[in-house]
């Protein structure tokens, strides 16, 4: 490969302390993800998948070890820089969509652009473009409640795309969707990946994971297996 990894984890551990009880969610993860990769993370419930995603997403800090995004070590960054990193480099897709219920599709997609302080882009045009891309050009003024689950997740993906991210993090994006809709969403993600965006996806469904080039299996806070599919 030879290319510098876009995501790099070195001996990353995460320990949650609840009272006098300690939960070792991650026990020392070493991981490199190259730019443009499409990775699926699988594993039993509680094995630490979401914990890792939150660390990659700069939403949380590891207990020990080093997590680097595009070469920047997250533990050395200030909160405002982390916010800017999330805004410019990362895009999140959640299992429960996490759309603002009172805002329509267009407003939801524009939300991250409000916090974009470096580039001066036409937020409205960019949001429309993203909604077109996910196939919701006709539904821009619909509120989440007026959309199906699959459509809501498309809005969420459009929102993740708005800031032109390098990485999309999707934690069980199809977890709340039926098989057919899941496949549609996965095809959308594949096409985004084809345009160069690095995608990391957590899923419990093998058929969903099949869309990825690389499958990582977690068990008890450790990587159990890491397989690349020849494409």
């Amino acid at each position, binding site marked *: 490969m030879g290319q510098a990894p876009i995501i790099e984890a070195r001996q990353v551990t995460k320990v949650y302390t609840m009272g006098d009880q300690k939960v070792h969610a991650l026990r020392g993860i070493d991981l490199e993800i190259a730019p443009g990769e499409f990775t699926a993370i699988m594993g039993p419930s509680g094995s630490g998948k979401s914990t890792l995603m*939150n660390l990659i*997403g700069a*939403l*949380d800090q590891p207990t020990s070890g080093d997590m680097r995004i595009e070469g920047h070590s997250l533990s050395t960054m200030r*909160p*405002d820089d982390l*916010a*800017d990193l*999330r*805004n*410019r480099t990362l895009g*999140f897709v959640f299992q429960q969509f*996490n759309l*603002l219920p*009172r805002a329509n599709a267009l407003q939801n997609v524009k*939300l*991250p652009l*409000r*916090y*974009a302080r470096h580039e001066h882009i036409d937020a409205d045009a960019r949001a429309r473009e993203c909604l077109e891309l996910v196939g919701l050009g006709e539904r821009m003024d619909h509120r989440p409640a007026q959309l199906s689950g699959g459509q809501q997740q498309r809005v969420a993906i459009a*929102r993740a795309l708005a*800031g032109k991210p390098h990485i999309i993090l999707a934690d069980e994006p199809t977890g709340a969707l039926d098989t057919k809709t899941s496949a549609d969403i996965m095809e959308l993600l594949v096409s985004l990946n084809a345009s160069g965006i690095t995608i990391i996806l957590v899923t419990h469904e093998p058929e969903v994971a099949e869309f990825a080039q690389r499958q990582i299996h977690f068990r008890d806070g450790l990587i159990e297996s890491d397989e690349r599919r020849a494409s």
Partner: protein
Amino acid sequence: MKFSVAIASAIEALFANLLRSFLTMLGIIIGVASVMTMMAMGEGAKARIDEQISALGASTLTLRPGSMRRGGRSMGAGAATPFTEADLDALAALPYAGAVSGQLNSSVTAVSGQTNWSTSLTGTDDAYFEIHDWHPVEGRIFTPREVRTGAAVAVIGKSIVENLFDGTDPLGQRIRVNNVPVSVIGVLEEKGQSSFGSDRDDVIIIPLTTARNRIIGAHRTTPKNVSRIEVMVADGYDLKEAQNELVEYMRDRRHIKAGGDDDFMVFNIADFVRARSATQATMGVLLAFMAAVALFVGGVGVMNIMLVSVTERTREIGLRMALGARGSDIMVQFLAEALVLCGTGGLIGVTLGFAGSWIAAKTGGWEMAISPQITLISLGAAVVVGLFFGYFPARRAARLNPIDALRYE
């Protein structure tokens, strides 16, 4: 995030839950409305007092027999030797005395035809009208000659016309004042209520000598007595200095030894009214304090609802942070909401304040005194309250940890 965007979405949030927003604002509305009404009332009362001071004659000194004992206990005015017409002549000769008037006052019953009316009688001279800047709207005032000769003539106030003559032309008519007939030669312009609430137009004014000789009667030991003297200080003389000189002059005339207490009083109307306005000012401070408390309580209400809102919207805050909002963006968002709540409350409050001041002015009988400053101060108070009480909830929101907020149930 631009502040204008934050304000716009704060307005949206306000409309999203209109009833709750309104209830939250209620405290601010009441607070601002009362701050505004209190200030307007204060201003109005002050303006009215100033007006009264000038109406009463800002340069008039009033002399009365009697003494102010130490500790403020006053001896009955009747106990001291009354002034006399000789005093009037002597005072008139002083350089700083522009005009001098002597008076005798009494309560009387006035009768015209079948109508009875209890009123007050003032026996005085022509200078009285000059000092009080009080002029007839019909007929004339009495001449110095009529004062000297004790003519049976009367100048009456508007209320006498209404109560005794039922509004018909009283000129040339007769009034029996305590059974003494006098004929009306003039009607005075309307003065309205005094600051004590009495009707200044409810008065019959006749020559001093007529009042003393035929109606009130002279003092037992001092003929030609007057019970009250008013001295209008001439232009170019300082009121306070004139007052001090007058006291010395009268002590001399009344043979009071050095160190002895005055057996008369000299005061100027302005002092008197100001003393009254001081109590009103205290009242004003008290009311303003209550208004401030109302505003404070309103602010606490806003803070309470904002805290609830931050808790309710924890997940939303987490989402915004995941999408790249900085702590400061979240802070600005919630401050903007507090500001919009309080600002809107402030605007409604100012509107109500206008209404309140108008009502207060109507009932208090003074001009509505809402200045742009009062409006600005009231609105400013609302904004300050918004910032002050919005800060703590906003900071709490801004300090949330993104992942904890996002996972919050």
